[in-house]
């Protein structure tokens, strides 16, 4: 009942939207088609399901892909990484999305296609004396075991714990790595996106937070008052996420049955190509290349 209602609404908006854009879509599509000429006349429909972390990239990439190939329709739905692996296995979806590597038994039936990497790091205010926190210390701070910076080698001041809102993939990855239950985290401030997290920490000398490495590195390079803490002695940088040495990172994958062909292959190649690299960066993920 609810599903039907939502779909109906999407349909109405979709119709309005495509009616509005219909006139100028054609010439643009032709202009864009030239560089990828070898793909001849793709048509058909793709069902993509899975991780809500990967979905924004795929959704935007799908829009562009549909413009390049007007006869193709790509339907993107979210439902978590487990669904992103299970649905292609069962044949419910053509392509799955998973914000983790495949488990050993999963790898027997499906294959993963890496499209980007996601890494997060702990950030402090630039003036904070603390240069290093062990995993136990970060855990202790987020569980409320230590509430003053002097407990972990800083000045005598209460710690402002900045946490992400429930459901954010950054929170999920952070909690998973530090083995925290999200309901047990004792936060002083809850933020939405990375930018708000960076501004909050930059404006508070005693705050600790965690954000996507891509956006933190960019902000620090722009002179924002934050510093990125290393983890287990490895510096937090996009470079270290890319070469997979940074511990707090994960792959973002598309999942299919072995040897995808035709439209499936064309779309996966497209999502892995340079043409969507700007989308990947915009969402503060790290491109593979």
């Amino acid at each position, binding site marked *: 009942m609810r599903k039907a*209602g939502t779909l109906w609404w999407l349909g109405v908006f979709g119709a309005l939207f495509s009616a509005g854009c219909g006139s100028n879509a054609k010439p643009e599509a032709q202009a864009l088609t030239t560089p990828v000429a070898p793909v001849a006349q793709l048509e058909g429909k793709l069902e993509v399901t899975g991780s809500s972390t990967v979905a924004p990239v795929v959704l935007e990439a799908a829009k562009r892909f549909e413009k390049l190939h007007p006869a193709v329709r790509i339907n993107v739905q*979210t439902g978590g990484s487990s669904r992103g692996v299970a649905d292609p296995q069962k044949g419910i979806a053509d392509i799955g999305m998973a914000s983790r590597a495949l488990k050993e038994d999963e790898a027997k039936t499906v294959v993963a296609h890496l499209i980007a990497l996601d890494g997060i790091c702990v950030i402090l205010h630039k003036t904070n004396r603390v240069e290093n926190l062990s995993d136990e210390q970060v855990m202790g701070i987020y569980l409320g075991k230590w509430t003053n910076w002097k407990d972990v080698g800083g000045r005598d001041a209460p710690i402002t714990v900045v946490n992400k809102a429930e459901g954010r993939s950054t929170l999920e990855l952070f909690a998973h790595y530090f083995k925290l239950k999200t*309901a047990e985290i004792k*936060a*002083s401030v809850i933020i939405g996106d990375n930018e708000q997290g960076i501004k909050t920490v930059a*404006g*508070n000398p005693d705050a600790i937070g965690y954000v996507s490495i891509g956006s933190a590195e960019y902000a620090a390079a722009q002179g924002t008052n934050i510093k990125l803490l290393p983890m287990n002695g490895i510096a937090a940088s996009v470079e270290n996420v890319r070469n997979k040495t940074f511990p707090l990172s994960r792959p973002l994958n598309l999942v299919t049955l072995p040897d995808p062909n035709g439209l499936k292959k064309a779309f996966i190649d497209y999502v892995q190509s340079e043409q969507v690299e700007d989308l990947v960066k915009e969402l503060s993920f790290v491109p593979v290349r």
Partner: protein
Amino acid sequence: MSPSAKDRLLLGVLRGCAALAGLLVVVIAAFLILESVPAFRNVGWTRFFSDPAWHPAPRAEAGQFQMLPMLAGTLAVMAGAVLLATPLGVLSAVFCRYYAPPALGNAYRRLIELLSGIPSVVYGFWGLVTLVPLINQVRPPGASLLAGVLVVAIMILPTVALMADGALAQVPQEYLRAAAALGLSRWTTVRAVVLPAAKYGLFTGVMLETGRAIGETMATLMVCGNIVRFPQSVFDPVRTLTANIALEMAYALGDHRSALFASGLLLLVLIVMLAGAAEWIGGEPARD
């Protein structure tokens, strides 16, 4: 085209516009109710007020859906902002109409109009990078009910100031002349003649600003800290219902998503009650 045909055409167009505007509200309300149904069915409305905390999950059994702290946050930000902005706005309008030289009054009015045109995200951003660090120096974490009240008060100030100015302009000139003839001082005239005569207009202004304070999302999201808890002091962080929707909607699935629509419905009910109260208290026309 004869005048009557033109009239009929105009009437048709006007009816169409009015129907469309009315229909929009009905459609939005219907949509909210439709989307909230799974939450009411699977979670049940009592759990919105009796669960131990707000830890939503896509399946009703796995989550906790306590909304009262966020309702309290919304009401606290609204009440604080309205209490601050109303006297400021009304008194500034009084100054601008009855005390300031006309040139200064006009310039001031332009300034307030400009203030009302600034998007809320700008106020929020200012609050986040300036106000929150300041409050943090007094009492951490800075992101707090107080920050929300101050930012929202500044945001709604132009609304109430402009409405009050308009209401004062409506006070008949004869009243002022009569007051002058009686030899009343300027302040007495304002207090005993102008304000009572303009009270319905002022009241409408207060209602409008209250509605805006309840609905404000971006600014409160940025400066309030967003912790779901009943605030013990003005320095405690709070989460408003609107901020909650903005924070979680993009990632919500299943019953969680539906619960967010239910909180939207709650906001709509709040606004309807507000409008109802305004009608009930201020419904009498001021022309008697």
